[in-house]
């Protein structure tokens, strides 16, 4: 009698809600689905901006470039929104403002570290978590190794 190996248990269904995709940020979310972390940069003054938008806030140029970001940054601010329980999360997530190496800041989540151990300016790196509807969103974890 041959023994069949145990079928691998399927990963739990994601509960995180999918991003609302709008025209200007479509490239950002499409790239996230492929686990690529893209940013938007001015085609004239070369400065980065977030969230994506039609016009450069620094020089008002309408030239936009989509570029790959390093995915590295530091924690600028952090909290845990405990009440009311945030929709789409089994446990209250750590929410951070991350300052990316490219100079822009964005709001995201930090995982893989206890709240008490979060430090100002601690180094983090991007990875991707699945959402409902087969999408992925960028979130951060403590940086594994120095560049």
């Amino acid at each position, binding site marked *: 009698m041959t023994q069949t190996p145990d079928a691998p248990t399927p990963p739990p269904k994601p509960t995180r809600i999918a991003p609302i995709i709008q025209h200007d940020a479509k490239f950002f979310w499409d790239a996230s689905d492929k686990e690529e972390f893209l940013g938007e940069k001015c085609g004239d003054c070369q400065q980065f901006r977030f969230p994506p938008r039609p016009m450069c*806030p620094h020089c008002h140029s309408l030239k936009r470039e989509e570029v790959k970001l390093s995915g590295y940054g530091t924690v600028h601010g952090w909290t845990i*929104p*405990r009440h009311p329980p945030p929709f789409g999360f089994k446990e209250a997530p750590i929410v951070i403002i991350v300052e990316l190496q490219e100079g822009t800041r964005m709001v995201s989540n930090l995982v893989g570290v206890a709240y008490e151990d979060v430090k100002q300016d601690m180094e983090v790196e991007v990875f991707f978590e699945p959402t409902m509807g087969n999408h992925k969103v960028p979130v951060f974890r403590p940086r594994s190794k120095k560049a």
Partner: protein
Amino acid sequence: MSDRKEVVIRGVGSSHYGRFPDRRVESLAWEAILEAMQDAGAEAGEIEAVFVGSVFGPPGVATRTLRGIGIGGVPVITIEAACASGTAAYHEACEAVALGRYSCVLVFGIEHLSSLFTRGAIVPEATDSEGRAGLPLPGLYALQAQRYMAQFGTRPEAFAEVAVKNKGNGAHNPRAQLKGSAPTLDEVMSAKMIAEPLTFLQCCPVSDGSAAAVVGRPKGRRGEVRVLASAMASGQLWDHRSKEFWGEGPVRRAAQAAYAQSGIKPSEVDVLEVHDSFTIGEILTLEALDLCKVGEGASLAPSGHTQRGGQQPVNPSGGLLSRGHPLGATGTAQIAEIVWQLRGMAGAHQVPNAKLGLVETMGGGAAGMEGNASVVSLLALR
């Protein structure tokens, strides 16, 4: 500037603040407007225009309010600037009178949140990226608080002290949503955690309410309060290189403009009503108003400086933390409070010798921007 006309607040009024699920939103405004008109000694026929502040309306709320109080036919302008909507309406009213467009206008703010936000906290606009990271509005302030602690070594108790002060004041304010409730420092610190490090008692309640003012040219009537300055600054594109926390920019710019208009120094102000939707908000605001240096705001309540008997009492009404925060009505509620304080009519929460008052409101929240808008106004008895 010399052809600008003198502007006064002739009268003010307000509803009670709280959750009134059984009341129509207009009826709260009727209470506020009728009190303000009577206080001003103004007839409905004198009102040449109406400026209304409201965030969540509903659409047409201004017109349906006016139906109940016999004012019609005049221009009615409804303004939305997030939490600063009421003060923005007041600011536009003051400008219209100063520039000679009208000589008597009605301002009111109105909001009925209890019918809209049954889960508690207001959630950010869903397409802003903050919402998808599980961050409700209190979380935005919590991020600032956490950063502030890391930067200046501030202990969470310093934030809680602001709640103890303001709720202690509001306990004596018969119109406040949380009247009669004066929690201790321990109670504030051990209350349910909303967003680290801000506990439930450091967040303003969800409120319904309305407040009104009659603004115009002086009539020489007792109790008129002179508008020494009113300035509004909207948010700029958020500069990611900024060392600021979030949203103080508009407050700082509005304050600088108001101080410049009036020639008044921050240290001369006797009483303030400022935007304390969350405890950290009052601290950052007082720094932006130049009452102290950046990083020193957290010591103002514990040191007694901003307590009701202190040198510069802040939020003697209880502020948003105790009076409640009916968004569009908050600015006009602050104006009404300062008018009562300057007249010595504030009752049990009266501040001694208040000659010069300041009102500040901050409307925040839009991804990629510093904030929505801030209004700062300086007032004195005429």
